[in-house]
């Protein structure tokens, strides 16, 4: 049994809650536990936020809510974030991709507490949470081309509930 979905949206902070709620809604029929649901929402939020802030440099408030951009940001990067999900035999495969700046040294970026944006009060825990909350995490990135994060998580009893 297989089920797939894909969403593509503007890389603005307004879409962060939409992204995690969309993935959560996609898996509800598998009856995930409250904890599994929270794990997946956190992991999705981390990867999407990374694409928005680091991939495209779109800071908080640079969306469609009518708030002015913070002074350090001149214009909104028009880039998109793509999320594709595949459910197969009770296992969720998520891919979150951007075509932004990319990462020079992926291994270093994945170290807990490592951040290139302490000025934005980032804590360098995003990848550490993805790793802790999901069963598998893989990061592929090319500087100047973009970043793709792949995560896997087994959900509930692993049976398809129609």
């Amino acid at each position: 049994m297989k089920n797939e979905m894909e969403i593509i949206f503007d890389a603005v902070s307004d879409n962060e809650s939409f992204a995690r709620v969309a993935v959560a809604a996609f898996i509800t029929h598998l009856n995930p536990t409250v904890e599994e649901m929270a794990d997946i929402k956190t992991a999705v939020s981390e990867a999407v936020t990374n694409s928005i802030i680091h991939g495209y440099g779109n800071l908080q408030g640079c969306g469609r809510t009518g708030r002015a951009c913070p002074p350090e940001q001149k214009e909104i990067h028009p880039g998109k974030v793509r999320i594709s999900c595949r459910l197969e035999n009770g296992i969720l495969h998520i891919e979150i991709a951007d075509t932004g700046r990319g990462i020079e040294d992926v291994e270093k970026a994945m170290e807990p507490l490592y951040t290139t944006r302490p000025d934005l009060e980032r804590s360098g825990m995003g990848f550490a949470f993805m790793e802790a909350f999901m069963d598998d995490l893989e990061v592929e990135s090319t500087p100047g081309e973009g970043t793709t994060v792949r995560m896997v998580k087994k959900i509930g009893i692993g049976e398809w509930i129609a």
Partner: protein
Amino acid sequence: MEQIRVGDFKVIDNCLMIRLPEEIDHHGAGLICENADKYLIRDEVQNVIFDFEKTRFMDSSGIGIIMGRYRKISCFGGRVYAIHLDRQIERIFQLSGLNKIVEVLES
């Protein structure tokens, strides 16, 4: 409406009490910090209490909010407290080491 996203701020004695919103992510984090810092400066409060009673979601953006406020008040001897953590937020506190600098109060 704004309160749902930003939370609720109250100064009691030398303590800033922040009732955090339902969801804490990068989108709302900037406004929470801006508001908190306004009170920290204007009322010269010494300590901050983060109340997670209404909070159902938090990602690493929440750590930035708490660490940032901690840095601002700890050099003046201020302390940071947290209350009403659910299981997920407690795990986030442990994984990030926040529980070493923040005193988690029993609810």
